[in-house]
């Protein structure tokens, strides 16, 4: 393994973490349209809080996919072809969610408006669940031949750990979305979002414990990386406690940070655990390693140069696009928005 190979493994991890941090609350907001908002009017106000951002947030996923293709083509090929149906369903969810914003603006009748709101909700519910399933199924080891072809049947994709993993990601995204919502609302909506997050946190603990137990038995993470895996899990629990306390005492900023960081650390748990492999095969001789799955040194050199130049610029204007919207808050009591 060269330095650049490890670097790009980390970069892919960071891009997926960025995706789940930013799209995480978009998904959570979409879930909030049914689990939190009480009528179509509130649903649109809730969605309004992510309307300027969701598209930019989704680019994190596209960049992660592109970067994976560029730096680890063999990983990209094995993972994407192996999880064919699951990825297809994720695409369908993302498509419905994506068009719902703009089509909702143009809806002519109550029925159409309701259709697009439902499209958003269903997309936002299934996309994180299926993604969580894919990642937590992948880490258990998949039937893979020497050429890297993955034959992931139903039992490989759907099992206890992957279902709990999918649920954990979805559930954390929902809480993350509520925390974001409380940042972007005032008065009644703000208080309700905080209150709901506070109550929902009680269920995070058993889900996390279940996830940790299953991960211990179903993966080799604790056999290979006992210390780092345990530390990450403990930090996730601590973050959850911190987020819970923050939500209870109305510090929405802290709560948002905590839920976002715990989503990021779930990615860290996965990437840390699979290292130095990228795809784990049921027969370990067929494992796809960072060492042999990567692109050529020249391609990695070029991609590193591109990343070093472009990423800081992207991060600056990406952050700026949130900064200019910082005072836009939804407040149902005083009309629509206050600044």
């Amino acid at each position, binding site marked *: 393994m060269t330095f650049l190979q490890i670097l790009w493994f980390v970069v892919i991890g960071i891009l997926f973490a960025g995706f789940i941090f930013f799209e995480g609350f978009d998904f959570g907001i979409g879930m909030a349209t049914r689990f939190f908002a009480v009528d179509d009017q509130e649903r649109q106000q809730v969605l309004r809080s992510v309307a*300027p951002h969701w598209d*930019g947030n989704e680019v994190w996923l596209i960049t992660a*996919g592109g970067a994976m293709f*560029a730096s680890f083509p063999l990983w990209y090929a*094995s993972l994407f072809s192996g999880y064919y149906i699951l990825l297809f369903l994720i695409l369908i969810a993302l498509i419905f969610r994506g068009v719902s914003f703009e*089509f909702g603006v143009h809806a002519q009748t109550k029925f159409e408006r309701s259709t697009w709101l439902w499209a958003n909700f269903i997309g936002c519910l299934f996309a994180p669940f299926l993604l969580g399933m894919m990642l937590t199924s992948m880490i258990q080891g998949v039937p893979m031949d020497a050429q890297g072809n993955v034959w992931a049947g139903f039992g490989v994709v759907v099992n206890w750990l992957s279902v709990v993993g999918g649920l954990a990601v979805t559930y954390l995204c929902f809480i993350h979305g509520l925390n974001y919502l409380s940042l972007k609302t005032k008065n009644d909506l703000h208080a309700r979002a905080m209150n709901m997050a506070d109550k929902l946190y009680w269920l995070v603990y058993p889900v996390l414990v279940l996830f940790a137990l299953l991960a211990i038995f179903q993966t080799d993470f604790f056999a290979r990386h006992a210390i780092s895996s345990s530390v990450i899990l403990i930090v996730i629990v601590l973050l959850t406690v911190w987020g819970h306390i923050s939500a209870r005492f109305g510090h929405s900023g802290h709560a948002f940070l905590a839920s976002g960081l715990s989503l990021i650390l779930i990615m860290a748990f996965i990437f840390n655990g699979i290292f130095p492999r990228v795809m784990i095969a049921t027969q370990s001789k067929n494992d796809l390693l960072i060492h042999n799955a990567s692109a050529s040194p020249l391609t990695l050199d070029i991609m590193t140069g591109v990343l070093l130049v472009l990423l800081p610029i992207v991060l600056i204007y990406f952050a700026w*696009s949130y900064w200019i919207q910082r005072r836009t808050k939804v407040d149902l009591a005083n009309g629509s928005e206050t600044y």
Partner: protein
Amino acid sequence: MSYVLMNVISLSRFQFAMTTLFHFLYVPLSMGLGLIVAIMETAYVHTKKPVYLKMTKFWSKIFLLSFAVGVVTGIIQEFQFGMNWSNYSRFMGDIFGAPLAIEALLAFFLESTMLGVWMFTWDKFKPGLHALFMWLTWIGSVLSALWILAANSFMQHPTGFMINRVTGHVRLVNFWSVLANPQLWREFPHVVFASFTTGAMVVAGMAAFGLLWKQNHDFHIKSLRIALLVGLISSGLAVATGDMQTQFIIKDQPMKFAATEAVYKDTGSPAPWRVIALIDTKKKAVNPSIDVPYMLSLLSYHKLTGSVTGMNSVSRELHAKYDKKFGKNMDYYVPVKTLFWSFRVMAGGGMLVFLISLLGLFFSRAKKDLLSKSKWMLWVLGIMTFVPFVVNSCGWIITEMGRYPWVVYGLQTIADAVSPTSTVGALLFTNIVYFLLFSFIGAFMFYYARKTLIDGPDKEEDEDSAYAQPVDPLDKEAFNS
């Protein structure tokens, strides 16, 4: 060649064609509309005339619809290389992935972030600065075309690579030569000018309908003139760059070129051009055809002499060149009829758009306003709304199907590129769902664009922005409508 069978290869090909063609209805539309909206907002910044602000807001509704569908269908594009063409991804990853990643990092972040800023900051920034965000969005979309076409150009004309002896995969040797690919610098301008034309004809055509329906006259005539000017310039440049592309193809992919002209046997010099022809692909013969003497030499070489190599000769050359590596059973004949007719629709449609733009500008001269009196001309312009989409699709059909049997020209065949894990059942399922989904989304896109036009530009005069505030929350009526 193998005709449509229910096998993994043909289902994968069908899916790629469907998803890409559907995606490429919206890509050029967004690129073109982005340009026109940016021009309109800039006109507002300079003249301060409210009509230009109204134009910006009205046409941006169509732009945003198109952009949304373009974005969601774009994710499929990135994922399907891995999902359906995993052996292609393994073979080409070293070259193909980098442009995709750069496209996301350089272009997608820019366009989607800036568009989000543009949509929701009408009251936060000065008009001049606000217009800049639309320009940045547009620049992002053009940059994304550059990088994805860099990847496509490698598939048409590989440069700057070597074959790794151990893995047999393509390996990057010279990144600059991938970017300096001569195919790219013909394909890229051709695609972007065709895209600007697409946006222009949609605005012009919709404005023509607006005039037919006696909507705001000043608004539509101003929109129409801006659009036709953009349409005239870009369709002219699209035709010119198309000619450059053809010149390159004659030498680089003679089979593709010969098929677009249905030339089986080498022509004499000067070569006549087949306007239309009945093609028998089994006997490899053309009978009968309507010919224009000298014309093919003129089109191919810009002079009255010169012969064109026929498909039969090209096939023999390709066999001599590739039989050692790919075996004798390869069929190098591309789908001749499809290419022949697609080329005619594309080239004819492109010329037509150029001429109609010219005619439309003449009719809409400010002093006389012939246009409002000539209903037939408005109808012609209205129909032109749809022509660029057909033309664009034909262009891609020629480019991609003309590469048959290669997925990467001379390096990998289509049959070797599919995912070994694909099954007919899974592909059939995804094909059907995609088809239904695209029909559904395409129908709503069309319905909402049409409804926007029917409502007309004067509908939401008092609201500052339709997007910042989809529905006024205090207005209970709006919700119950």
